[in-house]
């Protein structure tokens, strides 16, 4: 390819905290492209108030990509730093325009269209289509409208689309098909994300973290679910199972450890969690604001993990459990099976008897559990961000 590779780094520029999710992906994509073709890279930043694309001076670009950028002590304040280092940007006909942030919120394809007309220069990302497929699992109808508009624009303007999973890719193709847009749609290419990596040396936990860990472990085996608490994540299934387990087993009931922030639409659920017999007996505990290090320790000390989400675009927590050699019972909906290479026991997210029986088997039959755990030591769970970056460049940019 002869042309420039324009890379939208707005999300990374505006985020000064530990990078997770979409921010992480944008940073890794940018670094990978830079590694392969540094001379062709032109970073751009969307100056939202003025509604125009700017580019970033060289020194600042390096800063943004450095580790120091994401460990700011004052993240909200420092996010504005980038604005001092902007300069004008002019498009060129042979550009490719790579943009992988939460673009639907900022009408990014439309703004690219303003610069380039209907030339297909755009290389956008697809994480999932949840607000389109399950509008009741987004906080409001406005998300449906955003996604609808965005993916129609993508169909019109993209050269190729990067998808994090085959499941998401299929859902996008079906969306276009159902709207009669399949014939002129761009190809969707799957580039799976990296798997979590275990730190090489033993983790350091401070006193408070050690106390949390002891408190969780002290009453016996525990099962862990790591996720924001919101309706799509289906914590309700687990509460219903634990209601029965506690009624059947009393003090011998295992502990359910729910790790995650309170999301939208979950007040009733959290109230239930605290007031039910199992909750009052300390058999369901909730922790938020847990560091990565402590989280990996919690995974390691758990008996196994669960992930009964109604639908996932990928499902990082399931592969996190796999990374420490723990079984994670997953739902069959979405990309969880893909993310765990089909090695984990899986059930329809509403198959209560299936889930409950599996949980009891994993608890009561250590031989069974061990047999599943031993199948988890495969290379697929060792994919690095380097692997991801190389794969992205090869599939989306022919590099």
């Amino acid at each position, binding site marked *: 390819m002869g042309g420039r590779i324009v890379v939208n780094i707005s999300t990374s520029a505006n985020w000064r905290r530990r990078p997770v999710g979409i921010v992480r992906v944008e940073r890794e994509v940018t670094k990978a492209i830079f590694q392969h073709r540094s001379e062709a890279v032109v970073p751009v930043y969307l100056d939202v108030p003025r509604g125009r694309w700017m580019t970033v001076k060289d020194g600042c670009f390096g800063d943004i990509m450095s580790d120091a950028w994401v460990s700011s002590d004052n993240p909200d304040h420092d996010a504005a730093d980038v604005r001092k280092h902007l300069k004008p940007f002019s498009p060129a006909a042979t550009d490719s325009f790579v943009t992988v942030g939460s673009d639907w919120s900022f009408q990014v394809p439309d703004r690219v269209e303003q610069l380039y007309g209907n030339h297909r220069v755009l290389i956008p990302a697809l994480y999932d289509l949840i607000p389109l497929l399950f509008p009741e699992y987004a906080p409001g109808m406005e998300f449906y409208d955003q996604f609808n508009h965005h993916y129609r624009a993508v169909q019109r303007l993209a050269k190729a689309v990067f998808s994090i999973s085959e499941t998401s890719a299929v859902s996008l193709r079906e969306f276009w098909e159902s709207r009669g847009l399949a014939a002129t749609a761009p190809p969707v290419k799957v580039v799976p994300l990296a798997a979590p990596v275990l730190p090489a040396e033993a983790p350091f936990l401070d*006193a*408070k973290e*050690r*106390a949390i860990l*002891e408190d969780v472990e002290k009453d016996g085996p525990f099962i862990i679910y790591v996720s924001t608490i919101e309706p799509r994540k289906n914590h309700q299934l687990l509460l219903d199972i634990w209601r029965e387990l506690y009624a059947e087993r009393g003090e011998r009931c295992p502990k359910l450890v729910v790790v995650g922030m309170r999301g939208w639409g979950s007040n009733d659920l959290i109230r239930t969690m605290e007031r039910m017999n199992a909750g*009052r007996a300390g058999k369901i505990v909730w922790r938020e604001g847990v560091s990565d290090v402590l989280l990996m320790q919690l995974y390691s000390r758990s008996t196994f993990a669960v992930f009964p989400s109604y639908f996932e675009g990928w499902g990082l927590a399931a592969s996190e459990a796999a990374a420490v050699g723990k079984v994670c019972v997953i739902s069959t909906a979405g990309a969880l099976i893909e993310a765990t290479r089909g090695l984990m026991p899986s059930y329809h997210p509403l198959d209560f008897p299936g889930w409950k029986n599996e949980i009891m088997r994993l608890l009561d039959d250590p031989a069974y559990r061990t047999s599943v755990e031993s199948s988890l030591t495969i290379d697929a769970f060792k994919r690095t961000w380097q692997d991801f970056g190389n794969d992205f460049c090869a599939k989306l940019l022919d590099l």
Partner: protein
Amino acid sequence: MKILQLTNYPIQAPSHGGQIRCAHIAGELRHAGHDVKTVAVYVERDYEPGSEDDLPFGPSSPHWREDFPFLSDYLSGVHALSDAAAIAALATIRDNYLPDVIISEHPWLFAAAEKLAQGRDIRLVYSSHNIEFRLKENMLARAEGSADDRADLVAEIKAVEQHAASRADLVIACTENDADYFRSASAEARNVVVAGNGVEPFSCNAGRVDGWRRYMARPFAVFVSSGHPPNANGFWDMFTPGLTFLAPEEKILVIGSVGHILMQMKGARAFELINSSRIEMVKRMEKKDLQAAVRASHLILLPISEGEGSNLKTAEALESGRPIVGTSKAFRGFEGAALLPHVHITDDARTFRKTVRTLLDAARYEGGTPLEVRSKFYWNRQMEPVVSGIADLFT
């Protein structure tokens, strides 16, 4: 002989078990003809000083820890050993009083006592009330904070206790079990005597006893206890899941500061409303009235599930002559009494409740506890080993 008694609390107006024991030790030694001076290193916020010699300990000391209030006695010992003003004050007392023997009540002040005795012909006595490190370990287990931190503290406390046991010329234990621990390789005490807690004969008025029976209207069980969390937990442990075995009009009479915390314990929650409806609480009572209330009861409850040492309440219960339902821990040091027909010992909650139920339904027992059993537990008898043990220090 002149005896300097170091305590963690003033004992001039004894109300709790520790004060009562210290006061009787001092009293019996005086009875035997010795001169006894008591000096307290006490927690300021918990007590008023008993004399000008008493030394306060509180947040102004660098050794104070707000997060572990139940370690204040141990920390006061650290303070007494390291604080220059405290050391000086104690040295002055020693120089003015010239004791032959220094008794450390509890192990906390033993190191300070040792320091005072250095280079002089002063005998050291460690008067124990408990196996302290186990008690503190249990309390720390229920507290917050990191396990390492807590483990370190337990180890320090254990060391203090071992030091006192192994270095004292005489160790006084409350029970045979405690004595075994002190003699063992873990503590290596050279010279141990056992002197259990005692009780005073009842002197309540028969009319008042009748008054209590009329007031309570039906046969009732009585529970007398201080506000020590293990006591309250023991109550609910033995009555788990709650006081559901009592009929709507029946009540347990609960006397003492345990009333302040009893309904706050976790074990009270499952049947909270039933529990409050089945309890008649009196938080403070004057001694004679307490005796009358106890005598009026159909039976006495001793649901002790934690702690070593011996239990004053057990001695009082035997003295009262009423039937007793208690745990084996309650009868540590009272092995002789365990075989009496009106004493029922069980560590199983189901049996405990059934026994209380049966006794409440049965006719009132008026057989009492035989005098030869009761009088064993009077203070003068209980303290005999202390008096002879100290006398023997100089032979």
